[in-house]
Every structure is written in structure tokens, then in C-alpha cells.
């Protein structure tokens, strides 16, 4: 059965909005719970940004749900005055899939971390992305296990000395963006806790996207992996390292004479070269809507643990049918006249082969 899903709408289409003129503020989204992250944790900044940004969506608060797994970041739902579920380790995408599929009137968010999403919950993450369930997934990446007090995570670099790797990690890390693109995620972005403006812009685009949006957020853990992203936060050095992803623009780091851009070599590989003197024909123009994810993937591979070049921004933002819309369309198509009647239920129970016994005979044992 082919079902016409029409043009993909916004990620929040179908979610009840506030009446015109009504406004919400950050306070409306702040719960009465005391926030219990460590002082200096990057999670505070992200929480602040999310609480400030949510009113802009103009959605009814009761139609927003945050689902999280386990880990420091997964305490997030408690601090938002929306509906929320703090679930179990790694399973938030699965739980959110069931919720989003059965409730098109909800804006469903998943909050997860590098351990939660990429280690114990890796399977659920890739399948949510593959299916393209209408979810916005915020993956806080601090490259460490925080809540269990300092073991290496699936994003820790080789050689990382942690409580469980005193001689250095020998474990190859995941690049979450590459992983998501490999799973054919329709929206993939990276941002950083310290850049609130960029963070908010990315969140807005992610919420607007219909389908699974994966937002990797670099987040500092001041206790177990402090300064993991400091090289990106330094005003000069950081700007030289961050490759800004802007749709329709060259992918550029730094400014003026020292600016560097991404070019495609004769062998097809991407590299980062000084903008001055670069052959304009080789300079890559970023295209978030490219149907083929391979360019976005190649861009994601420019990153390495030395963080010499770190692409930041939206890697990919394409429209493709979502799982939940498809499932609901099939259910709706099966019942064009609304919910089944009692008579239809009885017909189902009867099936095709029935026989009738007349009169009451001796009772059955």
C-alpha cells in the first residue's frame, strides 16, 4: 500500500500552539526542582539555553515531553516544567519512539550523553535515526562517564587516562556525527555549550526539522574531564580550529589573512587549506540539503582527536518520510470511517468459519 505523506511539514506541525497573543517565558519552563549538577558543569548552560528557547516555539507546554536515559545529562527533564520521563540507561530513544508514534500532538525530545547514547544505547540511537522518528535528540558529549565518576567513554580519545584506563585507553572512539550520518540521519548538527547563540540557532533548526534530529553538544565536565574543549573556546586559537558550517557558504575557519577553507582535491578527498591562494573551483560550498550524505560524512571526518579542525553547525538537514507519520498514515488509511464499531469487533471475533449449536445440551466439563 503506498501512502502519500505529502510534503514533510515542520517538526512541530500537529502540536497544539498557544493562542495568538499568549506568551510564555523561561520561567514557565522552569520546574520547582533544585538543579543538582556540579558547579561549573556545562549542563547548566545548556539547560538555560533550552529553557530560554522553548517559549519561542510557541507550543503548549503540556504538549512537550522530554525523555532521558541515565547519566548526568539525563537529569535534564526534572528541571523543565513540561511532561518528562527519566528512564533507564540507553533506552530513551526507544521509549520516545513509542510515544512519538502514538502521539502526533506531542513535541518529543530526548536528552542523552555520550555513554548513554553511544555505548549502552547505541542500537536504539542508530535505529531511531534510521527510521527518522520525529524526535529531537540532544546528545551531550563530555567524552567521559561523569555519573559513575570518571571512566572513559565511547568518545574518549585513544590514550585517555581515566579511572578505568590508568595506562591510557586503547579504545577507538566514535565520532557521533559520523555515526549519525552513517545511520542516514536526516538532521545532524554539532554545537557547543559555551556558544549560546549558536546552540539556540541549532536547537531551533532541529525542532523545526520533521524527523530525527541529532544535535551533538560539546559539554564540559569540570570534575572528570575539565577543559576537554578548551582549545575550541580560546578566542583566537579556537576560531582557527572551528570550521563553520553555513548552508551555501564555503566551510571556513578563522578570518582575514589567516582564514582557512575546505577544498576538494583532485583525488576527491577534502582538506583544509589557507583561503588565500586556494583555487576557487576546489572550494567546497556547504549544502545541508544534499540528498547524498557522503559529502557531509567527509566533512565530519575532517575532525580528529587533536581537534585541529572541528566542523560546527548543521551537517545535514534533508526531508525524508518519517516513521511515525508512515505508521499513523497506515492506521488512518485502514479506518477511513473512524474507530471500529462493536459490530466490526464481533465480525472480527467470528472470523470466516463458524458453526452454531442449537439448544442447551449437557454442560461441558
Amino acid at each position: 500500500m503506498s501512502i502519500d505523506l505529502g510534503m514533510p511539514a515542520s517538526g512541530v506541525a500537529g502540536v497544539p500552539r498557544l493562542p495568538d497573543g499568549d506568551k510564555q517565558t523561561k520561567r514557565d519552563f522552569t520546574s520547582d526542582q533544585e538543579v543538582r549538577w556540579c558547579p561549573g558543569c556545562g549542563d547548566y548552560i545548556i539547560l538555560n539555553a533550552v529553557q530560554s528557547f522553548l517559549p519561542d516555539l510557541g507550543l503548549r507546554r503540556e504538549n512537550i515531553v522530554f525523555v532521558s536515559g541515565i547519566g548526568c545529562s539525563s537529569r535534564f527533564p526534572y528541571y523543565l516544567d513540561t511532561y518528562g520521563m527519566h528512564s533507564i540507561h540507553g533506552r530513551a530513544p526507544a521509549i520516545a519512539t513509542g510515544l512519538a508514534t502514538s502521539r502526533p500532538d506531542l513535541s518529543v525530545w530526548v536528552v542523552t550523553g555520550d555513554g548513554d547514547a553511544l555505548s549502552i544505547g547505541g542500537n536504539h540511537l542508530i535505529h531511531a535515526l534510521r527510521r527518522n522518528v520525529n524526535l529531537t535528540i540532544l546528545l551531550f558529549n563530555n567524552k567521559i562517564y561523569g555519573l559513575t565518576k570518571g571512566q572513559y567513554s565511547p568518545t574518549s580519545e585513544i590514550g585517555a587516562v581515566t579511572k578505568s584506563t590508568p595506562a591510557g585507553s586503547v579504545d577507538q572512539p566514535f565520532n557521533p556525527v559520523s555515526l549519525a550520518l552513517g545511520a542516514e540521519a536526516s538532521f545532524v548538527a554539532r554545537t557547543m555549550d559555551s556558544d549560546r547563540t549558536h546552540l539556540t540557532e541549532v536547537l531551533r533548526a532541529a525542532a523545526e526539522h520533521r524527523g530525527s534530529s541529532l544535535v551533538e553538544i560539546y559539554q564540559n565536565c569540570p570534575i572528570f574531564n575539565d577543559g576537554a574543549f578548551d582549545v575550541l573556546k580560546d578566542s583566537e586559537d579556537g576560531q582557527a580550529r572551528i570550521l563553520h558550517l553555513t548552508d551555501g557558504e564555503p566551510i571556513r575557519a578563522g578570518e582575514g589573512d589567516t582564514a582557512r577553507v575546505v577544498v576538494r582535491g583532485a583525488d576527491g578527498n577534502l582538506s583544509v587549506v589557507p583561503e588565500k591562494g586556494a583555487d576557487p573551483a576546489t572550494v567546497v560550498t556547504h549544502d545541508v540539503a544534499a540528498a547524498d550524505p557522503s559529502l557531509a560524512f567527509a566533512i565530519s571526518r575532517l575532525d580528529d582527536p587533536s581537534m585541529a579542525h572541528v566542523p560546527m553547525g548543521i551537517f545535514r538537514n534533508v526531508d525524508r518520510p518519517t516513521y511515525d507519520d508512515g505508521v499513523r498514515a497506515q492506521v488512518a488509511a485502514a479506518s477511513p470511517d473512524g474507530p471500529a464499531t462493536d459490530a466490526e469487533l464481533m465480525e472480527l471475533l467470528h472470523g470466516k468459519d463458524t458453526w452454531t449449536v442449537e439448544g442447551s445440551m449437557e454442560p461441558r466439563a
Partner: protein
Amino acid sequence: MSTLKNIDSVVIRFAGDSGDGMQLTGDRFTSDSAVLGNDLSTLPNFPAEIRAPQGTLPGVSSFQVHFADHSVLTPGDAPDVLVAMNPAALKANLGDLPRGATIIVNTDEFTKRNLSKVGYAESPLDDGSLESWQVHPVPLTSITVEALADFDLGRKDKERAKNMFALGLLSWMYTRPLDGTRAFLATKFAKLPDILEANLAALRAGHAYGETTEAFSVQYAVAPAPMDSGTYRNITGNVATAYGLTTAAHRAGLPLVLGSYPITPASDLLHNLSKLKHFGVTTIQAEDEIAAIGSALGASFGGAIGVTTTSGPGLALKSETIGLAVSLELPLVVIDVQRGGPSTGLPTKTEQADLLQAMFGRNGESPVAVIAASSPSDCFDAAIEAVRIATTYRTPVILLTDGYLANGSQPWRLPSLDELPSVDVEFATEPNATDAKGKPVFHPYVRDEQTLARAWAVPGTPGLEHRVGGIEKADGSGEISYDPANHDTMVRLRQAKIDGIEVPDLEVDDPGGDAKLLVLGWGSTYGPIAAATRLARATGAKVARAHLRNLAPMPANLGEVLRSYDRVVLPEMNLGQLALLLRAEYLVDIQSHTAVRGLPFTAVELAAVINEHLEVLHEGSRA
């Protein structure tokens, strides 16, 4: 000319290679018998391999049907008739066949090669080893091919119709009408007119073969069984479970969301429910068992009836999420179609060894409601009951069925609409508490005094925004709490809620009222135990019988019932799991009788067990 003989019951086993279509043949024969008004019970038995090497013992698939002019409780202990499509089918089933039984063999398959595959040095058809049975050698394959000589089909396609020939022959022997099968074939092969015609011709040829050859001198008739008046259909346990879930959701007026991962023998639940979209049923085939139950729980959080279906290994994977549902106190229905374990075990065989897993297989004090269906058609009522308990008490409910119930079938008297139980679900719509400043607020863990169910507010309800999670919650407010006394309170409250679920008292079947021996059972042993009790009583034995549906909580009168008999015997298809629980809970010296062969008990076997225990009582009273 054959003579017509009336008999009261017969057990027929169709056996052949996995690819021979024996399940379909048995199924059709069953439907035709049901329509005639016989009571019946069936037992499919097939290998886990889809197509094991042809002609080998591991590849044998069989379907047994017991039909009678009286009420039938089991698929029959031993076949009266074996249809063996090849040497492997003969060898694999001969041991179950009492002397004097009828064997119909497909002689075409008794080639040197096929015989040696199963270790026959000489053909048992020629060496006199089958003398004790009535053997009817029929070249089923070649006659079928001959009957289809005029069809423009390849030899393989012609040979494949041999199961319809066998069905035609058996239908003649037992005076079954062919109309039902004709209609079935017309639907099944609507788009393949050649194949349809070939199958119909093979069916006719089989029937004519019985009528015209001298080989079969007797035709048998089995009169309709006396049954309560009403409209009946034949139903398997998996279909009944799917329909029960759908009916419960329909009665509750809520969508049903199934999260499932394929696993034998539960996959048919997913298949059946995925066809019921017009009843508001959504099915999600998840990436694994954990995601399956996760998506069901997510749907429950959103106010749907969340269901997950699985078998033992899958239940193990779902444990942590069931624990979360216990903590969240949300409705969730978990169906475990039990199979032989541990680990992969015996995927296509039946067992009852997941009881303790269902009761306790989670971390922490994590009580859930557990119920078990007793027959294929009881799966319908049990599924409705599971949904009713889950929604009324906001708790996970584990419904235990098993491979025998799932694939076995029996006639089911269809309930009328007003016989169906109602399932009423109430969502919170208003604040139920006030905060320190006197402002009305919603506290998700405020409980109903009667049921101890917590208030259930679904997302989208304005003003009742709240957070729930797996961390311990403060009684009432639901806020995170690490307070020692509060944890003690909450652990006891969750247990008290399960203990307080209203379940009917255990009914005892004790016609004389003076039996000293009670046979207790649970789940799919209902049929064999009831049949065994009937056998024992027929010889004058005094024995009482009772069957448990509610395993958590157990009926309030259970202890009293157990203590009122001198001896209690409990047959189980495990190593005594319920016996362990009853001994611990009620301090009664339960006599456990166990077998884990992957097959249901036979009535004769259990009747012998009953007599042994009666003998012990008798000895005791003499001593």
C-alpha cells in the same frame, strides 16, 4: 462397498517433511471437523529449522488432532491413525503409536536413499516389523502426479499437491465435508488458477481413492459433541490472545500499541495484531526486545495500551524495562509465550519454566501481576484480564501462555457483546494536591484509596505537567527522594498494590465433596489434568481438581484450599516452580510432578500419577 461405523472419538496425526504441508493439512482437517460440530483439540509439533535437510528425522513436522462426540480436553495421548509421508515421519512417530493403530504411508518416499537417511537397513514396509499395526501403503506421490496428468504443471508442482490428496483420503475415511477446504483453497490460490485447480483435483482424487479402492473397507463417522448452545469457531491461542488485546483496547476506547521483536513462538501475535490497524492497533517491530518493550512503555506514558509480546529469552532482555514500569506505575502488558529453555532451548516446543522469571526476574523488590491462560480460547479472556488489571492498577502485567496454547486450537463459543467485560480507564484531568503556597498542583503518586493505583495524567493535559522516573520517588509528590523511611514506604506500597488486586477465589472441582487428594495446576496443563481426573474418576477414584489463573497475587482462599486436602499434587512442565512458591507461602507439603519434554502431559500419564498418590493416601490410612 465400504461400511460406515460410528465411533466416539479419534486421534489423527499427520506427519511428514517440514515442506510437505502437514500443518496446513492438519489445520484444514481440523476446521472441517469443527464445522461438523465435533469438539476437538490440536497439537502442532514442528522443528525450529524452517527446512531441515529433506527426509531426515530433524525435519519431521507433525500435526495431531483429537476430535470427538463428547468434550475434548487434550490433543489425545496417542494417535489412532498416523499419516506418514516418508520413512522419517514413520520412524519419528512410531514410538507414540499403540499396537493396532492405523498407519497410512506414502510408499513413493520409501526409497533406498530415504530409508538409509533415517537408518532403516530394510524397508519396514517389507520386513514384517509393522505387523502389529494396520498398515495402508499408498503411493501418494505417484497417484497425485497421475491424477494431475492433464495439468500443464511441472512435476514438482504436481507432487506438492500430495498433501491435498492425503486430506481428501482422510476426509473420506472420516466423512468430513470438503466444502470448507475448497473455499479455503479458492481464496489462497485466487491468483494462481492452475495451482488452485491442481489442488482441488488432488483433493477430489484422494477422496475418490478412498471410495473406490478395496483397501479401505470402513468409513468412520464421529457425531457432533454436545456443547453449550451458541456460535462457535476454532481458534488458536495466539489468535485468541491478539483478539483479547484488541477487544480490551476497543472496550477501553484507547489505542493499542504493540512493540515487539520477532521470536518463536510469539511472532504470530505480532503478525495477527499488525493486521488489525482498523481497530486502532499500531504495531512497531522494534530493533530488539528492549526497544520493543521501551516503545510499548513510551506509548503507555502517552495514554495508550502498551503491549509487548515475546518468549523466555526476550522476557529476560525486557527485565530492566519491566522494573522501570513498576517504578513508573504505568500500565504495561507483557505476554510471554513460553518455550523450552534455558537460553535458546527448544524454540518450537512448550514449557512452563518462566514462572519464576515472571514473578521475580528483576532487580529490587519489583512486584508485578502475573496471570496464566489455561487453554487456547482462554487466551482471549486472559488477555482482556491482563489489560484490565494493568489499566486499573497502573502496573505491568505478565501474561504467561506457552507454545502448546499458542499453536494449539480448540472450538471457542463466541461471546456476545454484552458478555465482554468492560475496561474503564480514567485519566487525571485536575490538580490533586496543593503546594506550600496553597497553589493547586498535580502529584503523580497520589493513590486511589481502594486500588492504590496512582493518578495517571497523560501528556497534553494542561496544568498537570510532571516528571516521572526510575529513581525512588517521594510518596505522593513523586519528587526524587533518597529518604530511607520513604523508600521503605514505597517498596511496601508497590507490593501492597499488587497484593490487593482483586482476583476471584480458587474454585475446586470435587463432585463428591469428600476427596482427600487435590490435583492443582496452572497454565496449559489444564486440559491434561482435567482429562486425567476424568479418567481416574471413571475408575472410581475420588480426586479434586483446581486450576490457578492468578499467580500474582494468588487467590485469597488458596491457602485454605491447599490445607483442606490430605495431599496436594501439582504437575508442572518445569522442575517444580509453582510448588516451590506454594511451599514457601503456605507451608503445605506440595507433591510436585514434573516433566520437561517439550510436549504437554498425557492424560494417561497424569491419571497414573493421581492413582499413585491415592495409593499413598490409602497406605497411610491403613498404617
